Structures are given as structure tokens and as C-alpha cells.
């Protein structure tokens, strides 16, 4: 008890000292205050330096990109915008976007629907011979969607052809399957494939298969090996040791341990990643089309060359529709596969589209 009182006395005493010297704070307080002031000043200087450096570097980059004295032609740009968004006067007075011209090109260019192939399927009364021809002679399931169908098929074929290789490379690239230095043979191969964008792979395959959807599909397949395989490797890092040990104790062979102990743990994840890559591959299908490989990308590029901006905008709308449909399909399927995946709303799908398009251009 006695010690208690002395302690509280002491506390009161020191508090008293604090209030007394409020006008003239003790040395340790001023010292600490100076310390803080100096740290803040140093930090401010640091930020200023960084800002100046960034501004200076940005200036250099502007010079390199010729943005310092750009060859800007506002008038031409305005004209093209008018082309992009044609205006018509409803009832002769109310100006409005002429959607009809978009639809006209989408129909004429066969962007979303090929009437020649579709005609086999849709007729009244249905003709069994034509329906047989549609499915087995014309193989029209993709072609019925016109140019969009070609782009979609490029992404699809690329994913299907790339998947088995991605599976093999991804599995063998995992450190748990192949011991350390040797797994880098596979990881390195995948890194190399990733380092070259799909559009360049298309250029590489043109001498082999010619400029068209076939070389684009093979290029996308190649790209898939690099990207999907990498995702597989990452996924395999996450698995638990338990089932692997359990399979070891059953006396299973090494390939059986890999299949039952490891791959069966990541099956759902692998399917989900493959769907995600399929999504990206369709977008890449648009991009490689631009250099002449066919599909919507090719239509877009050729209309641009002809300076038909209205048609270009119509093609963009078709691309938008295709990508959104693929994404909706894949997102739904994936979120069903892994219940913990957060579902993307339709709004996010639409507003996030330009960024994802840009991302996949770089791949």
C-alpha cells in the first residue's frame, strides 16, 4: 500500500512539472519536436526530388513519342468522328445517331451472321438434307456467325490445341514434379513463348500456313502454351502435401502420384483458368485479325484503310458483342465451378472491357 501511494505521488508530481513548464517545454520535448520537423523536411525534399525526376523523364519520353510537336489534324479527326457517329435527322428536324447504317454494314458484311450457311438451318418447312449439310458438310456451327464466328473459332482452336501442351509443360515445370534445375527447361520454354506476343507468332507462322485464320489459330495455340502453362505452374505451387503423401504410402508410381495426388487437387482450377485463357484468346483473335488473319479484326482493318469510319464503328460494335458474349459465358461457367469466385456484374463486364482489350493486345 505504501509503495502505491508513493508511486501515485510521483505521477502527480511529474504531471505537475508538465503543467508548470507549459510555457517553456522541457528539452526532451523540443528535441523530439525538432527531430520530427527534420524528418518531415527530409521527406518533403525526397518527394520533391522524385517529382522533378519524373517530370524530367516524362518530358524526354514525350520527345521520343513526338508528342512535343505533334502533327495534330483536328479537322480530319472531327471528320472521322462524324464518320464514326453518322447523324440523321428524324422527321427532318431531330438530329439522331443513324443506327440503321451500322446495322446495314453488319448485315452486308456478314459480321455476325452468314445467311448462306444459316439459310441451310433456318427454313420453313425444315429440310433434313440441308440440316445434315449444315452440320456435317459445311461444318457450319462457327461459320453461321460470319466474321465473328471466324474470330471465335480462332480463339477456340487456339485454346483446344494449346491446352494439352500447356498441361504437360505446366506440370513438368512444377518443382514438385521435376527437380529444381530441370524444371527450368520447361519454365524457360514457356517464358520464351510468352515473351513473344501472339501477333508476332502469327507473323512467324505466315510462311508456313499463309496469311489467314489458320496461322492465327496456331499462333494463339502457341501463346496459350506460354500463358496457360504458367498459370498451371502457379496453381500447382498452392496444393497441399497431404494427398501427395497419401498416394505415396499406397505405393503408387511417380506418374500416378502426380495424377492422383497433385492434378486431381487442381482440376477445377485448371478448367477455370482454361476458360479464362479462352476469353483472352478470342480477344487476341481480334487483334491478330488486324494484320490480315481474317475475322472481325480483318474487317476492321480493311474498313479503316478505306476510311469508311461508319463501317469501322459497326465492326467495333460486333467485336463488342462477341467479346461480351464470350466473357458472360465464361464468367458464369467459372463462377459456377469455383463458388468462391466473385461474380462480375454485367455493368463491370461492359465498363471493364476497354482495359481488358488493351491488356490482351499486349500479350
Amino acid at each position: 500500500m505504501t509503495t502505491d501511494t508513493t508511486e501515485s505521488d510521483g505521477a502527480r508530481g511529474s504531471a505537475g512539472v508538465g503543467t508548470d513548464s507549459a510555457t517553456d517545454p522541457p528539452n526532451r520535448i523540443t528535441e523530439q519536436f525538432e527531430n520530427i520537423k527534420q524528418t518531415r523536411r527530409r521527406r518533403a525534399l525526397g518527394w520533391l526530388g522524385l517529382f522533378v525526376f519524373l517530370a524530367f523523364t516524362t518530358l524526354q519520353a514525350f520527345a521520343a513519342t513526338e508528342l512535343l510537336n505533334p502533327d495534330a489534324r483536328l479537322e480530319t479527326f472531327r471528320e472521322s468522328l462524324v464518320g464514326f457517329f453518322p447523324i440523321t435527322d428524324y422527321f427532318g428536324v431531330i438530329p439522331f445517331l443513324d443506327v440503321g447504317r451500322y446495322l446495314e454494314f453488319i448485315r452486308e458484311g456478314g459480321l455476325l451472321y452468314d445467311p448462306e450457311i444459316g439459310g441451310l438451318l433456318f427454313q420453313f418447312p425444315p429440310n433434313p438434307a440441308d440440316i445434315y449439310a449444315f452440320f456435317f458438310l459445311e461444318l457450319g456451327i462457327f461459320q453461321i456467325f460470319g466474321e465473328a464466328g471466324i474470330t471465335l473459332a480462332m480463339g477456340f482452336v487456339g485454346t483446344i490445341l494449346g491446352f494439352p501442351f500447356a498441361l504437360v509443360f505446366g506440370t513438368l515445370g512444377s518443382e514438385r514434379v521435376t527437380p529444381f534445375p530441370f524444371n527450368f527447361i520447361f519454365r524457360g520454354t514457356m517464358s520464351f513463348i510468352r515473351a513473344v506476343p501472339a501477333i508476332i507468332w502469327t507473323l512467324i507462322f505466315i510462311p508456313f500456313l499463309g496469311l489467314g485464320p489458320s496461322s492465327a489459330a496456331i499462333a494463339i495455340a502457341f501463346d496459350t502454351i506460354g500463358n496457360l502453362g504458367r498459370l498451371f505452374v502457379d496453381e500447382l505451387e498452392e496444393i497441399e502435401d497431404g494427398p501427395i503423401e497419401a498416394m505415396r504410402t499406397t505405393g503408387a508410381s511417380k506418374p500416378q502420384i502426380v495424377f492422383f495426388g497433385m492434378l486431381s487437387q487442381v482440376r477445377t482450377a485448371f478448367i477455370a483458368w482454361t476458360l479464362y485463357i479462352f476469353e483472352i484468346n478470342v480477344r487476341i483473335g481480334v487483334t491478330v485479325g488486324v494484320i490480315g488473319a481474317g475475322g472481325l479484326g480483318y474487317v476492321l482493318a480493311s474498313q479503316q484503310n478505306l476510311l469508311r469510319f461508319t463501317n469501322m464503328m459497326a465492326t467495333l460494335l460486333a467485336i463488342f458483342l462477341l467479346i461480351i458474349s464470350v466473357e458472360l459465358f465464361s464468367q458464369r461457367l467459372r463462377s459456377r465451378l469455383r463458388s468462391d469466385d466473385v461474380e462480375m456484374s454485367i455493368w463491370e463486364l461492359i465498363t471493364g472491357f476497354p482495359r481488358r482489350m488493351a491488356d490482351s493486345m499486349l500479350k
Partner: protein
Amino acid sequence: MTYIEVDGLTKRFGDTVALDDVSFEVPPGEFVIVLGVSGSGKSTLLRTLSGLLSPTEGEILIDGEPMIEPRPDVAMIFQQHNIIGDMTAYSNSLSGGVHRSGFLSSVLQLQDTEEKHRALDALDTVGLLEEAEQKARRMSGGQQQRVGIARALVQQPSVLLADEPVASLDPGSAQDVMEYLRTASDDRDLTTFCSLHQVNIARKFGHRFIGLRDGKKVFDGYRDELTIDVIDDLYGDIDTEGMFVSDDGDADAETDEVATT
């Protein structure tokens, strides 16, 4: 006749000594329970017996052959079940016997009918024949552990190792799983090692008990030798008497016997 012979087994992880000069011999068909607090070396002993870990010193002979790496005649059951959640109970059970078939036939489940009947028979042993087509992930903890037992049985082992098979289960499921384990072991004449830390369950199911403390074997004896003093010695100063009373009448009677001796 000795079936399992452990001689001077020592296992070190860096500076930590997990097992320190442990030796014992087990005749075939015994149901051995390994007791000890967490960190006493129970898991290490079982994992070394299964071949998942190799001993630092000493030797393990099972059926006269040294245990260097996992082999089909020694099956293991894990605390965390370690079955494959994405596969059905039947596929999991079938995966215990993959060592008898090639890679493709095991992946595509093209094993012969005899093998598939064996998998179903094992599920029947653990009372899960009706649930054979269920995804393992959707099953309860107790059921998952029983699938684990079925997988071990399909392996057609002669030795069954169970590393705290009931530690993560509620008391009811724990009893069930231990019943099934004991039945399977008796029916198929398996030499069984089971590590536990519930003393009441241990007394109910075990023939023989091996007690570990700090990696050393401090007790080795049959049921009538497992007195409260031994338990106190193993688990330190805890209220072990409560554990005995909580058990059913059968075990209670035995506890009394032990107390009077």
C-alpha cells in the same frame, strides 16, 4: 514371432530430436496404440514406420524387410484424411490399389472387375457403400476419414498405420471411426498402429500401448498394465481421472480394476 521390429530408432530434424532410441517388437495382428502429448514423437514414429520419413539412426523391419520407402503392404491413414475432395468416395477407394495397375488404366478407371469389387467391399466395411457415388468433399469429417480407411484397405496391406485418425472429429464420429478401424483390422488380420491422445478411446480399443514422451519410449505394455500412474506419467499433471469416468460402463469397470490393483 515378430512381424514389426524397430531397433534403436532415432530421428532428428536439425537439432531437434523427435525420436530418441526407440525399440520394440510387435507380433502380427496386434492393435497397438501409441500414446503421448503433442510433440512427443507419435506422428514422427508413424511417418517413419510408413516410409515417408527415413530414420536418422536405427532400423525398421516389417515382415523381415527394412522399411526405406513407402510400400504397398504398409497403408497409412491421416488425421487430415488426405483423400481427394474432387473425386467420389468410390474413386478414392479405388485409388488405394493403383500400385497394381498401370498409369492409363488407373487414370481412366479401367481396372478389372475384381479390383472394383474390392473397392466397393472396402466401402462396405466402413459402412459407406450407399454413399459410394458421393463427392468426397461433400461428406462429413467422419465419413471422409472412413473413405480414408477404405482406401487403405483397398491397398491390401498387412500393416495399417493411423496417425491420429480421430483428432479432428467430434466424439460420436470418433467412436464410429475407431469401431470401423478396429473391425477392419480384426477382419483382415492387420497389424495396426494407431496414435491417439484421447485416453478413454485408447483404453477402449487398444490391445497394446506404447507411450512416448519427448521422443523416448516410456511405456510399453498391454491393457492391464496401463494404470492411471502410467497415464499421469505420460501426460503430466492433468486430471486424467475425469477421462476414465466419461467413458461407458465397460471401460469404467476396467478403470476400477486398475484402481484397485
